[in-house]
């Protein structure tokens, strides 16, 4: 396990969340399109006394090759496990192979309160890439199981491209420190199995991780198990 230096104030995550709050343009479960006149942003939960001084989450992604057509997120599925008492954020991006005059990114799903999408305002022209910061509010996650959120891009009122599926689960046992997940994707089959298991309940997740140990997805399964503290 890896921990960072014990300087909570300097946590990038906390600074970023503070900047997002300062932006006053976000709204829970919606998108920050840069409308500075929007409602004051309210995020869930600052780090609590007695807990590790850094925000905690872990996750996997199923990346997508960039198409020459249409509009698409960088990935199809993101599974993230987050500490329920910390804010956090994930990072993804949107590629455009057609012009989007009025870009909007909105959440739908079982509990859209769990994610706020932040992105720069303005149109997205063909060939451009627009990064998205997904601010997580794990304080609203259920004690067991997970929530699933679909993040959809819009051109005005019209949806464009396929949505990004995000599965969020809380785990107070996690001490992996992470500001978003990075470049390495997970085995799609293992990832979908994990997502399904998370959406069921925590024990199913453990069983799924154990079962995956013996298959082609052993490496991914070991990582999953390690994150959950599961021993073979």
């Amino acid at each position, binding site marked *: 396990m*890896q921990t960072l230096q014990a300087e909570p104030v300097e946590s990038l995550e906390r600074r*970023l969340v*503070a900047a997002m709050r300062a932006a006053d343009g976000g709204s829970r479960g919606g998108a920050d399109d840069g409308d500075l006149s929007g409602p004051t942003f309210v995020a869930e939960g600052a780090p609590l006394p007695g807990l590790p001084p850094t925000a905690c989450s872990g996750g996997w992604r199923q990346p997508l090759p960039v198409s020459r057509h249409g509009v698409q997120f960088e990935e199809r599925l993101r599974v993230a496990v987050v500490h329920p008492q910390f804010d956090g954020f994930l990072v993804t*991006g949107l590629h455009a192979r057609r012009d989007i005059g009025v870009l909007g990114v909105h959440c739908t799903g079982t509990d859209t309160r769990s994610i706020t999408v932040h992105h720069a305002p303005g149109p997205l022209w063909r*060939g451009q890439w627009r*990064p998205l910061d997904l601010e997580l509010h794990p304080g609203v996650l259920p004690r067991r199981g997970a929530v699933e959120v679909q993040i959809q891009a819009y051109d005005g009122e019209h949806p464009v491209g396929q949505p990004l599926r995000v599965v969020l689960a809380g785990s107070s046992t996690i001490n992996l420190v*992470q500001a978003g997940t*990075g470049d390495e994707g997970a085995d799609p089959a293992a990832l979908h199995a994990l997502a399904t298991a998370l959406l069921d309940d925590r024990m199913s997740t453990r069983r799924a991780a154990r079962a995956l140990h013996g298959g082609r997805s052993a490496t*991914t399964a070991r990582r999953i198990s390690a994150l959950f503290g599961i021993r073979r």
Partner: protein
Amino acid sequence: MAGDFFGVHVPELQLSDGDFAAAMGAAGLASGEHYVELGSGHGRGLVIAARDFGARATGVEYLVDAIGQARTRARAAGVDVTLEHGDLRHHDVRDADVVLLHLGPAFHDLLAPRLERLLRPSARVVAAGWRVPGWQPVSDVGWDGGYVYRPADPTMHGAWVPHDATGEAHPIHAPDAPLPALESLGAAPSPGPLFVGFRAGADLLDIRVQATGAGVRASASRLGRGQAMLVAIDLALEGAPSDVSLEVHAVDAQGRLARRGPALPVIGSVSRGR
């Protein structure tokens, strides 16, 4: 601190003292220059800039307790730094020589147009962890924890790229013609035009591509930051070989460069000869 944990790449969360020094060194921070850190946390970077580089250091931070810790840290180090409590999106950076960003990529993207507009051409921006979409990094300096840019320098407002990096599914003309990459421009001529890509490092208007030694056609007259276009180079199939050079002229979206003259200076050039 960045690395792979359980197979997941973890970006830098906090910059170490060495990271800060490397970033400032890559940006060429010099004594007496103005260092501005947008989102300065509790001031480690400010202290290093002031103490180790002799720079004037200014930090902008929204968290009040972080500002207090930064002030304490600077006092303990015996350096003077300026700390401002406020929204980093609205900070006036016109006087900055080096700006350090260590935020999320969406925030880097959000800040980019303002930095392009307000900074001096000589100013450098270090983006830690995440690149700024569309900006062209300074090629001759680097830092493995981030990217160094000169966003207000017109020579950084575009770059030649292989034609297949433009995202164009088809060339401008002659769809059946071969599609040589940039590297093949030095090869013997083949029937049909040669193609090269041009990617804008800022919002550019009134783009004109000029060529000596060949005809040239561009697929766009305006580009957004990070967008690319195809440029077709029509070579003479007969006659003496000729050197070809290309120039791109444009103005940025704020019109700032237009006020300096009718066009940008040369952004890049591609030569073909044999």
